[in-house]
């Protein structure tokens, strides 16, 4: 799969997981992501492993639940009560302990599922695509920025390696470890990382990667103008229903500003590419599909169609379920179709080991 298709997929998972609060659909999204994770290749040089992100995601889920419990919450279905001090309301309404309701836990679980889906999707993306491949398919306007990010990502593993080596050297000098020795670990590793970055920066400078000429002031101002336009547009859409047509116009104007900046930035960037990895038709279709589904989900969320949202505090009702909504959620699994077909055609992947990684 092309890097652009992977980027579109991650973007789509994020959009869906944030737009949808219906636990049934979120469950489908989560299953879809796990399915893709099982089938996705692990060939990239992603910095953080899938396993690490998966563990982090599960931990976030757990923390979300624990925080909901400790804070206590509102709701009618009280499960149990944790004794806690009464914090005066002038302290910002912070609560410690108190009644724990099924509604509160359900809300926390919904939040946790969304976070877990997004983190798992990033884990898959990291394993399947190397930062360099993403860089190659970034549009010219974002080239400089993305190069900086990529170089940073490439340096990260060597910094982790430095930390390991410094720790070993401490042991070789007879140090026992422990918190007291923390500076002796961190200081050399940070200095080592800085020196490494300076050497790389020097090597890049020597190879002609100088600062590009600055963007003309007009283009920069236009780009900056898009931000207040977006804010005005969002305000009018959500809080002034009568002004919605104006909001739409403002949003269009903001997009136009960005497009102008994009063209100016792309024209300024004179670099060429050795291998302009063309995006195959299948991947173009995939990107269009992902963008379409994301737009559909956001649209459905804004208009309230399809029952994508769910409010557990309204008496903990049974979540709505419709075929349309389920199909939108199921769309997150589309890479699995392609990967599954390819895996079937080519040599078989190792689903067993992949499954072990999914469940930390």
């Amino acid at each position, binding site marked *: 799969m092309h890097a652009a298709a992977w980027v579109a997929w991650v973007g789509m998972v994020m959009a869906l997981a944030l737009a949808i609060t219906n636990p049934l659909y979120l469950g489908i999204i989560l299953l879809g992501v796990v399915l893709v994770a099982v089938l996705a290749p692990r060939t990239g040089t992603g910095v953080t492993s899938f396993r690490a992100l998966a563990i982090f995601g599960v931990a976030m889920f757990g923390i979300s639940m624990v925080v909901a419990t400790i804070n206590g919450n509102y709701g009618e279905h009280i499960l149990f009560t944790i004794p806690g001090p009464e914090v005066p309301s002038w302290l910002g309404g912070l609560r410690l302990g108190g009644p724990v309701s099924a509604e509160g836990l359900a809300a926390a679980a919904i939040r946790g599922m969304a976070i877990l889906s997004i983190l798992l999707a990033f884990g898959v993306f990291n394993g399947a695509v190397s930062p*360099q491949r993403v860089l190659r398919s970034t549009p010219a306007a974002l080239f400089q920025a993305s190069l900086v990010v990529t170089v940073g990502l490439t340096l990260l593993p060597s910094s982790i390696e430095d930390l390991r080596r410094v720790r070993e*050297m401490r042991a*070789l000098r*007879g140090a*026992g470890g422990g918190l007291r020795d923390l500076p002796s670990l961190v200081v050399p590793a940070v200095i080592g990382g800085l020196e490494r970055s300076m050497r790389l920066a*020097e*090597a890049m400078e020597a190879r*002609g990667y100088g600062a590009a000429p600055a963007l003309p002031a007009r283009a920069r101002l236009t780009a900056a103008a898009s931000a207040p336009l977006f804010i005005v547009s969002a305000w009018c859409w959500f809080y002034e229903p009568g002004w919605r047509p104006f909001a739409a116009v403002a949003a269009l104007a903001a997009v136009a500003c960005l497009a102008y900046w994009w063209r100016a930035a792309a024209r300024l960037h*004179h670099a060429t590419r050795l291998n302009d990895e063309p995006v195959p038709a299948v991947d173009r279709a995939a990107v269009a599909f992902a963008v379409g589904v994301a737009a559909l989900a956001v649209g459905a969320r804004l208009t309230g169609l399809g029952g994508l949202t769910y409010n557990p505090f309204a008496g903990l009702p049974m979540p709505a379920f419709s075929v349309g909504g389920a199909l939108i959620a199921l769309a997150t699994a589309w890479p699995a179709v392609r990967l599954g077909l390819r895996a079937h055609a080519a040599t078989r992947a190792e689903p067993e080991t992949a499954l072990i990684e999914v469940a930390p």
Partner: protein
Amino acid sequence: MTALARLAGVSYRYPGAEALALDGVSLEVATGSYTLLAGPSAGGKSTLLRVFNGLVPQFHGGRLAGHAVVAGLDPARTPSRRMASVAGMVFQEPESQAVTETVEEEIAFGMEQQGIAAGEMRRRIEALLPALGIDHLRYRRLLTLSGGERQRVAIASVLALEPRLLLLDEPTSQLDPAGTEAVLGALDALRSGGDLAILLAEHRLERLLGRVDRVVGVDGGVARAMSPREAAATLAAVPPVCELGRRLGLDPLPLTVDEARSALAGRRLTVRATEPRAPGDELIRVDGLTVAYGEHVALRDVSLSLREGEVIALAGPNGSGKTTLFRALTGLTRPASGEVRFAGTPAPGAVRERTAFAGLVPQDPALALYQESVRDELRDTLRHRGTPRAGVEPALARWGIDHLAGRNPRDVSVGQQQRVALAAMLAHDPRVWLLDEPTRGADGAAKVWLAGRLREHAANGGAAIVATHDMESAARYATRVVVLDRGAVRFDLPARAALGHDGPFPAQAAQLAPDAITVDEVVE
């Protein structure tokens, strides 16, 4: 030949530094010439190289006085984007100059920045790959290449911009002998091809004096251009052949072993070799040691013994298991099988206890320094070792760094920092020293000093294992040579047999006077 680059009265001081890094340097570089910059570390070689492509002062800051012209451009003012296609630079460490993931992309990176059309990029890549002998590596990932291969990729990626001047800052100091030869051979091939001028800074002159047209001695910021023969006669640290030529008063001075052989034809040289003391009790014994990292077997059934008074030079190509052997000896890595015994008893389990007896100085030991002063670094080690603080001053004196005691270890020169790091790792004076490539990138004086420390330690009843590629230095301190190859011991010979004229690594002195391995042993 015409001058491609000219410096006139160039002086430079790094921002915040007190001393001048370059002091009134005037120099001409001719089109198509091959120049070697030689001299002690921190003498100004790297700084001088960086003047030619404008990194000094454009990247490093500070003010440059004097006048510099490279191919009609002023490097101090020309944007790096333009300078890169006039003067290309290759750095010391292969790892810290790569930007992309694969060989082809790495070579293309600079060209992409210049906006060169894809067709032209392909044409240049096609021409460069065979010129540097890296044709077969085109689609490989950089991480999977050896050091010598990566340096050749770095050279190709710089040459892709078709510069007129190629600058190399100690490009072979991190490489094993095979990698060094491959890089220098590639440079020879480039020279014969056109009018590219090459400026190369290096400490190890053995392979270079016979190759270059001209030597520029750089010391204390002052540069002096001379012929290779003049350099052989005047530089402080020269290869053994030149040293021998000097002592025997040969004129002209030989630069290579072949030249020395014909100059010495008919002369009888006597050798006064000092037999090493008979080794004492066994300090380390390794039996059937096997270490595996996953699928990869790094050490295969290695057996070795080290006795009092012995210094083993541990050689072998990169990746042959030298570092792994040290890791297994100090307990940093658990062996799959085999036994390690210290002074007749099984070695303790903890790294801390093992290194109390056999202290390891890993590569780049300066990474371990973090205290505010050199004295605190040593005190820190002794505190962890539970040895009396009174040991700090004697240790400073032993390692010849008492004059640096109050300085911040990060502010001293690179050579001094190496010495401080050695002292900090070995402050508790363990019986056995394990040194992992301690002379990597070190200058002649530092190598002679370290050889002296090793002999002294062995004479006091200690022992050492030194991993190294530099067999000429090893001849000065080693009593035995052990060679690892793909994780197994290939040779384990007395130094005199290994470095002698019919051994696997004949030292330069041995090729001229069959019974000697160092110049000091040869007398008229």
